[in-house]
């Protein structure tokens, strides 16, 4: 479609302005992370990252985040593959109602479930464990994963399952050697989204581990902020450390982030 030169120029002006609006806060925090601390000589201070890493205990909190994310992503994906397989490829009584029950999970706010989860798990002596941080997030991701994979598995041609049946494959073997290999892009998207949600989750990590020994990365940063409000360079370096894994992942896997968020939202 042809447009006038004047309109084209206007378009670029608008786009550049909004790209700058999106980037400036990110660049500001990066610049602050590299700036001198109070009383230091001007220049680029890469040492801020080293100091923030040590003082803020980010090795520990990033490790905790990785453990929680590994637990949540693997469990949620395995459980969602199983349930999505049933909803997407099988006929059974109550399928629609059961599916709506799962859909409800997409709407339940964490704010509502976190209060009873804390008090009930405290009674059982389970707060301050990886399970207490991971299980509520597995439940949330399973609701989305079931919904997401049902839609994906439905698009598989029935002839695929019929061919597997002719070869004498049972349901588990068909899932493993036919359905899953044919759905790798959709599964990748689910892994990427579940990882992002878990990595960035704050409220559950804040409430379910009050002892502080299992702080995840966002919690580590929040705690760091309390101690180093005045030392902006150090605080910003910590923030960059927490955000960087996600930003790098986004740059490599943008298509999966965007596809998942769009298609998941529209359905």
């Amino acid at each position, binding site marked *: *479609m042809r*447009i006038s030169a004047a*309109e084209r120029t206007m*378009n670029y002006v*608008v*786009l550049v302005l*909004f790209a700058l609006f*999106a980037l400036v*806060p*990110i660049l500001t*925090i990066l610049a602050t992370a590299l700036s001198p601390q109070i009383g230091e000589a001007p220049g680029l201070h890469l040492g801020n990252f080293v100091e923030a890493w040590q003082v803020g205990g980010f090795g520990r909190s990033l490790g905790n985040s990785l453990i929680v994310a590994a637990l949540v992503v693997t469990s949620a994906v395995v*459980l*969602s593959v199983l*349930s999505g397989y*049933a909803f997407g490829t*099988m*006929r*059974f009584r109550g399928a629609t109602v*059961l599916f709506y*029950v*799962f859909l409800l*999970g997409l709407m*339940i*706010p964490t*704010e*509502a479930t976190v*209060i*009873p989860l804390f008090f009930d798990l405290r009674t059982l002596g389970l707060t301050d464990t990886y399970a207490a941080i991971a*299980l*509520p997030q*597995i*439940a949330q991701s*399973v609701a989305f*994963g*079931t919904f997401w994979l049902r839609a994906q598995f439905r698009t598989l041609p*029935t002839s695929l*399952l019929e061919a597997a*049946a002719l070869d004498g494959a049972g*349901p588990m073997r068909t899932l493993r050697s036919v359905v899953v290999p044919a759905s790798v892009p959709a599964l990748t998207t689910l892994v990427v989204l579940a990882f992002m949600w878990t990595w960035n989750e*704050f*409220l559950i990590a*804040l*409430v379910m581990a009050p002892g502080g020994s299992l702080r995840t*990365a*966002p919690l580590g940063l*929040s705690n760091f*902020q309390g101690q180093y409000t005045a030392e902006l360079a150090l605080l*910003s370096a910590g*923030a*960059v450390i927490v955000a960087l894994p*996600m*930003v790098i*992942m*986004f740059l490599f896997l*943008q298509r999966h*982030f*965007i596809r998942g968020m*769009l298609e998941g*939202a*529209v359905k």
Partner: protein
Amino acid sequence: MSKSPPSAVVRSRLTPYLFILPAFLVYAAFSLYPLIRAAQFSLYDWAGFGPSTFVGLANYADLAGDEAFRAALGNALVLIAFYALLPLVIGLVLAAIFRRGQVRGMGFFRSVIFLPQVIALVVVAVAWRNIYAPNGPLNELLRAVGLDGLARGWLGDPGAALPAVGFIGTWLEMGLVMLLLLAGMSRIPDDLFEAARLDGAGPVREFFAITLPSVRGEIVVALVLTIIAALKTFDLIYMTTSGGPGNATTVPSYEVYDRAFQLREVGSASAVAIVLTVLVFAINVLVTRIGERSR
């Protein structure tokens, strides 16, 4: 229900249920059941330890006259304008530009504008606290252009704090809205635009006659997602203002946390949580209904 087996590779009628069971158990135990427990908690007066007293709907009745709760609801409405309406306008403009003009570097612009969505909100909060600080870049800019009178500690100023937090929401959500609308617009056939142009329609008329009506469904989805994001904006409030100054920036999700874990009013916190849940459900149902009618 037909007598045919569940699928070509499954013979037993029980099999589908066995596949669903593990997912259902985790989901029911850690999402559905806690929601029911929250509803139950909301009927009691409890400090989080010791004895609890059944008070019926008294916690809900108290909310009607509760200043902090009313402030939270009012603030949520203001935040919706910043989180949902403003990004909708920006998203429409940006997506229309992408759809109409042959933009070079479209992929680059798209990714950059979407980037705020993937950054943890605690990090976002640190970045914006820095920008809004009394000696931060925003005030330096205002002073540099001679608008010293406008400079202030943005997050500490009772009149400025809420819009300041809301503006972070605009920054966060514009990319998601843009992409949703762009996905909708890319389905509009090119001939429709060509025909409009042959009729002499300019970019503005073309936008209102063709582009806008065909993305109603996507607008509805964008509004649901962003309104709910505004209602659930806990991390950002916790990290930037803690609801202050006074009650200037408190929101329902922050009230839930504050009441349950700091004020030790678990019953009242649960009542707020249930009201928040009902709000989220109602917005989903309402907006989806409107969307279906307009299709």
